[in-house]
C-alpha cells in the first residue's frame, strides 16, 4: 500500500484539542474587555478601572464611576454575552446541519424576532423597550418551532428543515414589512433594531440575558464532545454510543435559546455566528466541537471589539454594531476562506 507523506510533517499524533488554546482565548477576552471599558467619549485609565472594580472608591471621580458602572461595564458584558451566544450557536448549527454556511438565524429565528420586535414597536406607545425583548424572544422561538413543525419528522431530512426555516422566515418578513408600511412612524426604530444595537444595555438586560445564555451555553458545552459524533453518519454515531436525533434536538433547542436571547437583548447582529467559528477552526486547524468554549470566548472578544469600534470610530455619533461586524467580518472571512482553500488544494 502506498504510504502517504504528510504535508504538515511530524510523526507524533497531535492532540485533538489543547487547553492552552482556550486559555489564550480567555486572556484575549480579558484584554479586549479592559480596552472596551477604558475607551469611549470619556477615557478611563486601566489602573483606575481595575482599582475601582476591586473596591477602591478614590480611584475615579464620581462621574467616571458612573460612566464605568452604569454605562461601560453593562455594555461590555452584554456585548460579550451576545457575542459568545451567537458564535457558539453558529458553530453548533454548522455541526448539526453538516453545513459550513449555517448561522444562528437559519431556522427563521431572525425573521421571527424581527416580526416580534415590529409588533412591539408598532403597538406600544410608550414602553417600547420593555416589550421589545419579550416579543422578539417569543418571535424567534415561535419561528423555529413552526419550522420544526412544518418540516414533519424532526431530522429525517435536515434539508427539509432548512427549507422550512427559509419559508417561515420569508413569511414572517412579509408580515413585518406589511406592518411597517401601515405604521410608517415605526420604520426608524425597527430599522435601527434590525442593524443591532447595544445602546439599551443596562444591568437588568445584562442579568436576564446572562441567565438564559449561561443555561444555553452550559448545555452546549456539556454536549460539545459528543457533537463530534454528528460529523459522521448516523449509524456510526449510534455505534459510538450517541443517539444522533436526541443530541440534535437538545443542541438546536439550546442554540435557539441562546440566539433568541441575544436577539432580544441586542437586535440582529449578523456575521458573528459564521465568522467566529470558521476563524477559530481555521486558525487552530481543528474542527472538533471541543473548541466551543474557545469559540464562545473569541465571539465575546469579537463583539466587544466591534462595539468599541461602533462607539469610537465616528465619536460622538454611534455606528450600528451590525455594520461594524459585517464591515470587518466580511473581508476577514474572505481571507480565512482563501487561506483554507489553499490549504485544501
Amino acid at each position, binding site marked *: *500500500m*502506498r*504510504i*502517504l*507523506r*504528510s*504535508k*504538515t*510533517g*511530524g*510523526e507524533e*499524533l*497531535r*492532540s*485533538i*484539542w489543547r487547553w492552552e488554546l482556550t486559555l489564550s482565548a480567555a486572556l484575549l477576552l480579558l484584554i479586549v474587555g479592559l480596552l472596551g471599558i477604558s475607551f469611549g467619549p470619556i477615557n478611563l485609565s486601566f489602573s483606575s478601572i481595575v482599582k475601582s472594580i476591586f473596591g477602591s472608591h478614590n480611584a475615579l471621580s464620581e462621574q467616571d464611576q458612573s460612566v464605568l458602572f452604569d454605562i461601560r461595564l453593562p455594555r461590555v458584558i452584554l456585548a460579550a454575552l451576545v457575542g459568545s451566544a451567537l458564535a457558539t450557536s453558529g458553530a453548533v448549527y454548522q455541526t448539526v446541519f*453538516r453545513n*459550513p454556511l449555517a448561522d444562528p438565524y437559519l431556522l427563521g429565528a431572525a425573521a421571527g424576532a424581527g416580526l416580534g420586535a415590529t409588533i412591539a414597536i408598532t403597538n406600544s406607545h410608550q414602553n417600547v423597550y420593555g416589550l421589545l425583548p419579550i416579543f422578539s424572544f417569543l418571535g424567534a422561538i415561535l419561528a423555529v418551532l413552526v419550522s420544526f413543525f412544518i418540516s414533519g419528522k424532526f431530522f429525517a431530512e435536515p434539508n427539509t428543515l432548512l427549507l422550512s426555516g427559509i419559508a417561515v422566515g420569508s413569511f414572517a418578513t412579509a408580515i413585518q414589512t406589511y406592518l411597517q408600511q401601515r405604521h410608517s412612524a415605526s420604520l426608524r426604530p425597527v430599522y435601527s433594531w434590525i442593524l443591532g444595537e447595544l445602546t439599551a444595555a443596562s444591568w437588568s438586560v445584562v442579568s436576564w440575558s446572562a441567565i438564559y445564555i449561561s443555561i444555553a451555553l452550559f448545555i452546549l458545552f456539556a454536549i*460539545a*464532545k*459528543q457533537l*463530534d*459524533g454528528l*460529523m*459522521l*453518519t*448516523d*449509524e*456510526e454515531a*449510534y*455505534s*459510538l*454510543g*450517541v*443517539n444522533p436525533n436526541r443530541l440534535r434536538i437538545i443542541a438546536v433547542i439550546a442554540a435557539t435559546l441562546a440566539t433568541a436571547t441575544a436577539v432580544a437583548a441586542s437586535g440582529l447582529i449578523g456575521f458573528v455566528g459564521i465568522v467566529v467559528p470558521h476563524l477559530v*477552526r481555521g486558525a487552530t*486547524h*481543528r*474542527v*472538533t466541537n*471541543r473548541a466551543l468554549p474557545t469559540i464562545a470566548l473569541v465571539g465575546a472578544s469579537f463583539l466587544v471589539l466591534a462595539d468599541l469600534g461602533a462607539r469610537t470610530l465616528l465619536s460622538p455619533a454611534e455606528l450600528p454594531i451590525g455594520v461594524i461586524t459585517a464591515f470587518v467580518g466580511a473581508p476577514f472571512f474572505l481571507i480565512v476562506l482563501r487561506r*483554507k482553500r489553499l490549504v*485544501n488544494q
Partner: protein
Amino acid sequence: MIKIDSLNVRIGSKEILREIDLELSHGKWTCLVGPNGAGKTTLLRVILGAAEYSGSVTDNGAEVFNNHSRNVAFVPQHPNIPAGMSVAEYVMLGRAKRDGWGTESKSSKSLVARTLKATGLFGAQNQLVSQLSGGEMQRALIARALVQEPEMILLDEPTSALDLHHQIAILNSIESLKSSGVTIISTMHDITLAAMYADHLVVMKSGGVLLSGAAKSVVHSPELKDAFENRINVFTLESGREVILPNKDELI
C-alpha cells in the same frame, strides 16, 4: 448468537423487510447478498440497533434496539467526510465508545498509531480526510472501526469504492479480525468475493430472505440464481473456488 424472529420493518407505507427469521453465529463472517433494494443495508441497521422494527432481534438474548451496552462498529458505504478533520482525529473518534467522548488516553493514542500503521495510513495522520483517495478513505473507515475494539463489526459494501488490489487488501484485514473472535456481518455486491471470504451467506430479495447457509452450499443453490432472476452463472475453477458472473445473453 444473533436471533431474528418475524422481523418486519416499514418506512411510512413501504415495507422494507418482511417476515425475516434468521440465526447468525458469533465469531463468523456472514455476508448478505442480493440485488439492489433487497433490504441488506436496512438489515444491517437493524442488527446495529439503530432502526425501529417489529418482531424480535436479540444478541445473546438481549433485544438490540437502542441497546448501547453492545460494542458494535459500523462502516458505512457512503461516509460523511468532515471538512477540515485530520486522519488521526477521524480515527480517534472510534475510541469514543471505549474511552468516552473527548478523552485521549496515552494507550488510545498508541493504539491509533499502531492501527494507522497496520492500515498503511501512518504518515498521513495530519492530512485532511477530505484529501484522501477512495481507497485511503476506506482504510481510514476500517481503521476507525478497528480502534473501537468492537465485538462485532458491520460493513456496508466495504469494497465498492476500491480497485481489485485494494479490495483484497481490505478484505484480508477484515478477515484477520475473526482470529480475535470478532463477529463480522457485511453486505457485498460481488458474490465471488463474498463466497471467497464469508463463512455464511444470506440471500435476500425484495425485503425477504430466500436462503441462509454455509457459503459453499448457498453459492450452488437455485435460490441464489432466483434472487438475480436467473441472470447469473456459477463457475467452479480447478482450484475449487467459485466464480459468479452475470449471464451476458440474458441481459440483452
